[in-house]
């Protein structure tokens, strides 16, 4: 079971084969696919999937806050997985890895991309530090 499937199960979503396929499509997407995009990609993996199943599954994932629904003023929604988004600070002396989340940082990254004329799609950031001695 993948981490994502585990999160879905913990949220009470029964993991059927078709739902796993839809999660696989979302998990490997490098963009923000629409329902139709998800359907087309899922169909290539399992041709028994219907668009109604994709709609229902995305709706359930949205209700469970496992996907983020984007409205890009196109008249339809686009989706991305709601990853447990975090960054890492690495202690250079010991190698200890500290996970952190920071809303201001997230907003700043979006703002920088936007000011450069881009929609932020992906990024990577690691901080390196030395423990301050008290």
């Amino acid at each position, binding site marked *: 079971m993948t981490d994502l499937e585990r999160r879905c199960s913990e949220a009470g979503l029964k993991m059927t084969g078709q739902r796993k396929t839809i999660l696989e499509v979302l998990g490997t997407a490098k963009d923000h696919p629409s329902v139709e995009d998800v359907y087309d990609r899922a169909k290539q993996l399992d041709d028994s999937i219907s668009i109604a199943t994709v709609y229902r599954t995305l709706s359930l994932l949205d209700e469970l806050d496992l996907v983020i629904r984007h409205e890009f003023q196109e008249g339809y929604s686009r989706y991305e997985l709601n990853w447990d988004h975090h960054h*890492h600070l*690495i*202690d*250079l*002396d*010991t*190698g*200890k*890895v500290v996970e952190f989340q920071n809303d201001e940082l997230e907003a700043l990254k979006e703002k920088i991309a936007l000011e450069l004329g881009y929609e932020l799609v992906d990024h*990577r950031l*690691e901080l*390196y530090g030395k423990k301050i001695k008290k």
Partner: protein
Amino acid sequence: MPCAPTPHNHSGDPATDGSRCKCHRAVMQAYKGLIDDQPDSVARQVALRVYRHHHPEDCITVARLTVERWVNEGAPH
């Protein structure tokens, strides 16, 4: 300029190197702390950065080879 070994270069034997320096433990802790969460290439880059903090005197080639050896030895086969 060729990358000459320095007196601080590690033999690659963590048992003996570990007695001289904490870098092996730090490198492996960083790598293992990321490998379940990040692509292997990212975990290796971070491990290399930690190594270079401990051994700035090593040239990048020696540092990379040392870290690669440690990580590969520690990886499950």
